[in-house]
C-alpha cells in the first residue's frame, strides 16, 4: 500500500493508504481529525471542505495520494494558540450554527471566500458562493450574517 505524506495543520504526517483512500478518510480515520465531516456521497454538501495549499476543496472528492506533499488545513487547525479564527468567532457570535454538522465545512468555505473575494461581501455574493455547502438547520440567514461579519474581522 502506498505511503502518503503531507503537512496537516502545520504538522508533518504520513500514513499508509490504499490508492482509493479519499483525503477525508485519511483525515478522519488515519489522523483522527473528526472535525471534517462527510454528509453526502456526491460532492454536494460541503461538510468536508478543507484547505489544500491555501484553497478550499471538498476532501471527499480528492484522493489522499493526490495530496502528497500538500499543506492541508482542517477546522482543527484554524485556532492559533487558543485564539479562535475570526470566522469561527463570527459563527458563534451570529448564531451561525445549530447542530454543528455543516459548520466546519461552512467555516472553511467562508474563509476561502474571503481569500478570493475580499472582506467586503454583499449578501447576494455570499449566498451565491455558498452553492456547494448545504445546511439543513439554520436556513442560512445567520450563516450569511456570520460570513459577512467574519469577513470584516479578517
Amino acid at each position, binding site marked *: 500500500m502506498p505511503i502518503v505524506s503531507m503537512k496537516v495543520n502545520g504538522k508533518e504526517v504520513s500514513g499508509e493508504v490504499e490508492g482509493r483512500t479519499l483525503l477525508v478518510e485519511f483525515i478522519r480515520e488515519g489522523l483522527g481529525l473528526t472535525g471534517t465531516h462527510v454528509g453526502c456521497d456526491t460532492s454536494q454538501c460541503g461538510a468536508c471542505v478543507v484547505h489544500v495549499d491555501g484553497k478550499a476543496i471538498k476532501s471527499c472528492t480528492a484522493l489522499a495520494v493526490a495530496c502528497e506533499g500538500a499543506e492541508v488545513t482542517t477546522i482543527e487547525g484554524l485556532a492559533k494558540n487558543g485564539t479562535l479564527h475570526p470566522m469561527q468567532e463570527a459563527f*458563534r457570535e451570529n448564531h451561525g450554527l445549530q*447542530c454543528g454538522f455543516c459548520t466546519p465545512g461552512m467555516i472553511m468555505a467562508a474563509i476561502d471566500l474571503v481569500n478570493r473575494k475580499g472582506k467586503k461581501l454583499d449578501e447576494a455574493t455570499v449566498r451565491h458562493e455558498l452553492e456547494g455547502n448545504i445546511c439543513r*438547520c439554520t436556513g442560512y440567514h445567520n450563516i450569511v450574517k456570520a460570513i459577512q461579519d467574519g469577513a470584516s474581522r479578517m
Partner: protein
Amino acid sequence: MSETGIGARVKRKEDHRFITGKGRYTDDINLKGQVYAYFVRSPHAHAEIKSINTAKAAKAPGVLGVFKGEDVAEDKIGGLICGWMIHSKDGSPMKAGPHPILAVGKVRYVGDHVAVVVAETREQAKAAAALVEVQYGVLPHNVDAAKAKSAKGQVHEVAPNNLVFNWSLGDEAATDAAFKKAAHVTRLEIVNNRLIPNAMEPRAAIGSYDTGDDHYTLYTTSQNPHVARLVISAFHGLAPEHKLRVIAPDVGGGFGSKIFIYAEEVVCLWASKRVGGRPVKWTAERTESFLADAHGRDHVTHAELAMDKDGKILAMKVNTIASMGAYLSTFASCVPTYLYATLLSGQYNIPSIYAEVDAVYTNTAPVDAYRGAGRPEATYVVERLVETAAREMRIDPAEFRRRNFITSFPHQTPVIMCYDAGDYNASLTKALELADYKGFPARKAEAAKRGKLRGIGFSNYIEACGIAPSAAVGSLGAGVGLWESAEVRVNPVGTVEILTGSHSHGQGHETTFAQLVSDRLGVSIDNVSIVHGDTDKVQFGMGTYGSRSGAVGMTAIAKALDKIEAKAKKVAAHVMEAAEGDVEFKDGSFSVKGTDKKMAFGEVALAAYVAHKFPTSEIEPGLKESAFHDPTNFTFPAGCHICEVEIDPDTGVTQIANWVAVDDFGSVINPMIVEGQVHGGIVQGVGQALTEGCVYDSGSGQLLTGSYMDYCMPRAADVPSFKLAFTETKCPSNPLGMKGCGEAGAIAAPAAVINAITDAVGVKDLPMPATSQVVWNALQPMKKAAE
C-alpha cells in the same frame, strides 16, 4: 432581566466544540476492535425472496459474518414496531404488517434491509455485500398513495387493499348539514408532496456487546435514546433495560427522522454478539439515507370549505389518503390522524369539521414524522382553502381571516383540541405592518413594469406542541406517556448539573436550560452543565420532538429547581438558626427576614453536603432533586407568515422577495435561538414548496431522487433573509408560559409560498414543489390567451 437569564440573547455554550471541530458525533467515535457493517438492500420495490446465498461473501477477505433474517429469527429478536394504535371507523385495529430487522420471505421497497455483512473494514464489508446472492421473484408494486387501494400487489398479508386504517374525526352529519346551508363552497385537490428529511449528519450506529458482563452499549444518532432502549429491550427482546446502555452523543440534526427505532441500529447491537463482542459500526452513506430514512408527508387530499354569504366559515370537510410506505414506522400512524386532523380548525372558528383519513401501504420507504408532522399538512389544507375562498368571494384575504378568527379562549374546536391562549389578530396586524401590505399594489405595478409577476401570500398557522399530556395521548392510542424528567444535582461548591430526558441536536439546550437555572438559582451559566443523551446518566426521558423540550422538558427542570430551593431553604434556616418561613431566596442568596443574616447559594450547597450544622435526622444531607412533568394540555404556538414573490414569466423562476414572520411562542427564553429555529423551519418549508420532492418511478418502483443531484435541497441563494417579530400570549399550562418554536417555520411556510405564487400567476392551484417548470407551465395557457 439578567444578562444570562430568561429572555437574554445568550451566545451558545455548546458552540465552542462545534466551531473548533471537536463535536462528537456517532461516526467520530471509534471503539477498540471495531468492525463494520454493510447492508444488502433490496433492488426491487416488491419481491419474494427465493433464496439468499451467503457462501461467497462469507469467504471474502476480512469478513466475520454474513447474517440474514433467519439468523435473527433463530435468536428470537423481534421486529420493528409502531407505537401508536389507531382504530378504524368500524372499530377494527390498524393493520400492522410484520417488520423484521432483516427481511423474511419478502422485500417491500427499494432499500429494504435484506442481509448484513460484518467485516474488518468498511471497504471489505461493502465489497463482500456485493457477493451476497439473492434470488428474487418480482411481484407487482405500487408507489402511489392515491392508487394503493386498487393496486394489483398487496404489500402486507394482513392488509387487504393495502388499507392500514380508515379513520375519521368529527361530526359528519352536522358537517353535511352545514354545507347544505352554504352560500359558497371552495374545493381543492391537494397533494402534500413526499419529502426526505436529510439531516446533514447521516444516521449511524455502533453496537457493542460486552461478553464479560453480558451487557450491550449502543451509540446511535437518536433524538430519544431512552425510548430506543425501551423498544430494543421490550420489543426486540435483545436485552433487558439494565443490560443495555444507549448513548446519543452529538447528533447532527434530526427533524423527526432520528426519533424512530431503525433496523440498522438493532442489527449492529445484535451482530456484535454474533461476532464475539467486537463493536459493530454502521454509518449510512447519503444514498442509504435517501432510501431508508423515514420520509415525510405524502398526502393526497380532497378538501372543501363552506361559507355563508358574508364569508363566515360554516364547515370543513377533508378526505385524505396518507401513504405509510411499506411498513409502519415507530410513530407513523399518529401523524396523519391525531397530529393532523386535530389541527384542521386552524386559527378559525369553524362550527363543524369532518375528516376522513385512509392510511395506505405503498412500496416505498416508511413515512413518519418530519418537522411539523401532520401539522404542516393540516396548515396547508386550511390556509390554501382559506386563501382560495377569500379570492373566490372577492374578500381581502387578511379581512377574510379576521372575520373568522377565534377571539375568545379557551376555545374548544370540533376536532379534540382546546386552544388555551392566543391573539391571532395581533400577529396578523403586526405582520401586515412589517410586510407593508398597503404598499403591495404599488410594488406589484412596479414589478409589472419590469416584466415580472409579483404575488403575496399569507399563512396563519397554528400547531399543537408541548407533546403531550400522557392521559390524553393514552386515550388516543399512544403506547407511551409523554411526560419529561429532570434531575438537578447541586455540587458542594455550588455548581449545577442538570440531567434531562430531552435531547439536543441543534436546539441549544446546553444554553437555554442553563439560562433557566441561572435565572432561578442566581448561578453563572458557566457553572451549569447540561447532561443528556445517555441512558446510564439520565434516569429516563422521552426525548426531543414536537417542540416539547421547552414546554415539557424545561418545566420538569423548573419543578426540580423548586424542590432544590425548598430543600436549600431548610438547610439555610438551620445553619442561620432561623425559622424556615423567615428565609428568603433572592438573586442567588438566602437571607433571614428582618436580619442581616445571609448565605450565598454556594455556601448553602456546601452546608448541605458537609451536614455538620443541621440535624440529619430531620434533613437528609445533599442537594439533589428530580421531577417528572406531565403537561395538562398541548401548547398552541401560532402566528402569521407573509411571503412575497416575484416570478420571471419567461423562465418560471420564483424569487422570494420578502418574508415576514410574526410568531407567538409564549415566553421566549433566548430570542437568538428561537429566531434561528424559525429561520431553519421556514427554509425547510420553502424547500417543500419550491424545490424538494421525493419521486419514485411508477414503472420500476425505483427512487429517482436518491441523491443531492436529484433531490433539490434549498441552497443559500434560494432564500432571502427574513423579517421576524414576536407577539406574546403566555401559555397557561406551564409555569414558564412557553409554547415551543421548533416546527413553526416548516408548518407555516409552504402555504405562504403557494398562496403567493398562485396570486402572482393568477391560478387557483399549483402542485408542490412549484419548480420553475411547474410555474412556467402554469403560465402558458394565460400567455396563449393573451396572444
